[in-house]
């Protein structure tokens, strides 16, 4: 940070505060306001967007910003750590600036879209809806701007709450509350590990700051960790429990935090909540369950990437989980009937890619894919929302067909998003996904030993998933828009208004072109310096602090090399050849998938071809029985255990308590029988008692 604080940063807290105000307004006065509080939300998110853009511009001008806004509390940890300052703060750097724009933009668009999806459809409870959106936007933006892990965790949980509230928006029905519960619970399970991680990091380092910008006095845990491992020089302050090997301990901490990531970003095995979350209103799915909240996990890994880079094991696991999830979810997407279900599995799959990228050292690739995916997936969801409006809230694709002519705007924008999702050049998804796969490929090739093998396996998963992605995407497109209408509503769909079409148009364009910001293959081929995103994330020269991507990726001294020991390799054709081969293979697979979909489903009267899958069909329909497994865990293991505990508690523990009382009363009833009522008995007992005392005294007194 140079000189005085740029003006934009002074206003940065308002980015989050504005939606919070809109939340309060919607909550308090929503039912007395036009549009149920939507206008406030639109204004607030628009304001946030503008401020985000301002911050973006300021950051690109070479400034970054860390600022403590509110000291939560200062804990006295004693010993080496001393006072632990827990606070809410801002970290504005290229990564967060980019993410701010994504979030506020999509939030704005979703607010607008909701006018069409919710207000125009005459929903009740709109103030609650917009309050939820406002609170979510606030939480998400605060999460993005967090300068420490604790704050990140807090808002990570809060977005979970908003997700819960919005999934369960239609609480009068049975399915949404159930889905909401599941969403919160499954992510909570992940957050459990995350929280241990946060606690562990704070207990280890005495701070949970992500980065040090400007202020050298403050410590940041990735920096300290690197010092402990000797990757960077300096004296570190860290308390490792039980004299554990620091490397191992950091890996454990990283994996614990990863638990939250896996939950929130719907990675295997905690992905099961996301498809259910589609019970929520579609704009919510677009905002929360596609573009932003689900991205929080990935964003978090990127945020503390410097820490993960110190642990090759953690990285390997991230890559493997990501690659596997990408493939695993994609296969499930191919048999789904509801349009939103397809998109849900697709979302899981795409976040798998991002995780793969992060695990493979592709920091920029992951971030890039995060951005493009945010746009095209939000677009697809909103498009699906438009279709759902048209279909009177029937989501079954087998009831659709031929909507292309009836709703051209929706169709073309949806197509744009689909092309991006499938990874067809030159749509945005191609560029980002290509880079993801490329990173995994080259690092897999170059890195020796198990690490490299692991990356190659993950790469293979990802590559295979490309084919399925192409297939399910276009199966969806063809079933929805092409062929003959297969139901009465599809013949005469409900129209949509500007408030639906507008956001679609914006996102449609973005989905098509946003990939151009980072055309790495083109750069490699032509040498043109058009990897703008790389440059952006790397930050201006003034900003090459620990947060910047340069530190992660550039050269032999980068953490990627020093910490994770990743080395880039190439195939026979050198770098350019590798780029080309990689791109060609993935594009080819995508086209193959799309082509298969075209053959099977782009017909007037498409039929299900799932029978050809044989035994695999049931498995896929049932999502690999993952839900069943989790339900089994909940209902057949946990509940009986709880009931058993309850029985034990009531019978044994409480039984003991009641037993003491019963025994006392019982002995009381026995004892009082001594009092027979016969005075001669009393005389006898009295005499006997006296004799007993006499004998006792004589015995102890040694009279005999």
């Amino acid at each position, binding site marked *: 940070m140079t000189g005085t604080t740029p003006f934009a940063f002074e206003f940065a807290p308002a980015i989050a505060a504005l939606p919070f105000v809109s939340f309060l307004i919607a909550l308090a006065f929503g039912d007395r306001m036009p549009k149920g509080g939507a206008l406030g939300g639109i204004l607030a998110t628009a304001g946030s967007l503008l401020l985000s853009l301002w911050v973006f511009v300021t950051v690109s001008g070479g400034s970054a910003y860390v600022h403590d806004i509110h000291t939560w509390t200062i804990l006295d940890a004693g010993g080496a750590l001393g006072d632990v300052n827990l606070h809410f703060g801002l970290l504005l750097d290229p990564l967060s600036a980019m993410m701010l724009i994504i979030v506020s933009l999509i939030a704005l668009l979703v607010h607008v879209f909701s006018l069409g999806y919710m207000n125009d459809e005459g929903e009740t409870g709109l103030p609650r809806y917009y309050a939820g959106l406002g609170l979510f936007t606030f939480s998400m933006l605060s999460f993005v701007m967090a300068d420490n892990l604790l704050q990140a965790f807090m808002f990570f949980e809060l977005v979970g709450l908003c997700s819960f509230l919005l999934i369960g928006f239609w609480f009068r029905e049975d399915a949404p509350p159930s889905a909401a519960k599941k969403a919160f619970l499954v992510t909570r399970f992940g957050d459990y590990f995350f929280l241990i991680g946060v606690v562990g990091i704070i207990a280890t380092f005495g701070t949970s700051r992500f980065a040090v910008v400007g202020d050298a006095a403050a410590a940041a845990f990735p920096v300290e960790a690197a010092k402990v491992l000797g990757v960077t020089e300096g004296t570190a302050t860290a308390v490792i429990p039980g004299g554990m090997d620091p490397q191992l301990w950091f890996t454990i901490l990283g994996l614990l935090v990863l638990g939250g990531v896996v939950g929130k970003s719907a990675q295997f095995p905690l992905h099961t909540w996301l498809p259910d979350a589609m019970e929520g209103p579609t704009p919510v799915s677009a905002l929360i369950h596609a573009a932003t909240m689900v991205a929080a996990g990935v964003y978090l890994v990127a945020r503390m990437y410097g820490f993960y880079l110190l642990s090759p094991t953690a990285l390997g696991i991230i890559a493997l989980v990501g690659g596997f999830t990408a493939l695993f979810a994609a296969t499930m997407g191919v048999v789904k009937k509801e349009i939103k279900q397809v998109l849900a599995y697709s979302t899981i799959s795409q976040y798998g890619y991002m995780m793969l990228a992060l695990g493979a050292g592709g920091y920029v690739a992951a971030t890039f894919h995060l951005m493009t995916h945010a746009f095209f997936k939000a677009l697809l969801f909103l498009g699906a929302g438009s279709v759902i409006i048209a279909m009177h809230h029937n989501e079954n694709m087998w009831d659709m067909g031929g909507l292309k002519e009836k709703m051209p705007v929706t169709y073309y924008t949806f197509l744009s998003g689909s092309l991006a999702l499938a990874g067809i050049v030159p749509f945005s998804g191609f560029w980002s996904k290509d880079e993801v796969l490329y990173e995994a490929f080259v690092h897999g090739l170059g890195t020796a030993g198990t690490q490299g093998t692991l990356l190659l396996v993950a790469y293979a998963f990802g590559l295979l998933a490309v084919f399925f992605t192409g297939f399910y995407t276009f199966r969806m497109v063809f079933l929805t828009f092409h062929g003959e209408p297969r139901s009465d509503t599809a013949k005469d769909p409900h129209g949509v208004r500007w408030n639906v079409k507008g956001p679609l148009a914006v996102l449609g364009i973005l989905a098509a072109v946003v990939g151009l910001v980072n055309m790495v293959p083109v750069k490699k081929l032509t040498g043109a310096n058009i990897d703008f995103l790389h440059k952006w994330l790397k930050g201006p020269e003034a900003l090459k602090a620990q947060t910047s991507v340069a530190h992660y990726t550039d050269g032999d001294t980068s953490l990627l090399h020093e910490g994770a020991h990743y080395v880039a390799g190439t195939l026979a054709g050198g770098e350019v050849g590798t780029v080309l081969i990689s791109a060609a293979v993935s594009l080819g697979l995508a086209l193959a998938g799309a082509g298969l979909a075209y053959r099977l489903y782009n017909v007037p009267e498409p039929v299900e071809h799932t029978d050809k899958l044989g035994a695999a069909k049931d498995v896929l329909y049932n999502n690999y029985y993952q839900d069943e497994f989790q339900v089994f865990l909940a209902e057949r293991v946990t509940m009986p255990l709880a009931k058993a505990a309850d029985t034990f508690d009531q019978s044994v523990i409480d039984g003991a308590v009641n037993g003491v009382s019963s025994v006392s009363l019982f002995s009381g009833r026995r004892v*009082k*029988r001594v*009092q*027979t*009522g*016969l*005075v*001669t008995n009393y*005389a*006898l007992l009295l*005499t006997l008692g006296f004799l007993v005392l006499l004998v006792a005294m004589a015995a102890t007194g040694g009279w005999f």
Partner: protein
Amino acid sequence: MAVPAEYYLVLSAGLFCIGLAGILTRKNALMFLMSVELMLNAANINFVAFSLYWGNLTGQTFALFTMALAAAEVAIGIGIILVLYRNFGDVDVTDAVGMRW
């Protein structure tokens, strides 16, 4: 001191036990009362005997007290036995078992 003190003790203990036995075996309230008198007199024997043994008058004086009190006790006792008879129609102490446990 012709008779050793132990003999008096044995005598009084015997008397005491006889009285006690009477109490334990008799149901008639009057017999009960008489047995109590026997026991008190057992005490009196001791007092008188050991008064002699110790050479002071304390024991003898006390024996007088005991007798007076025994008389008072009997007076009260007879009164109670009287109302017992009126209420229960008998002087059998085992009749009065209205309260127990």
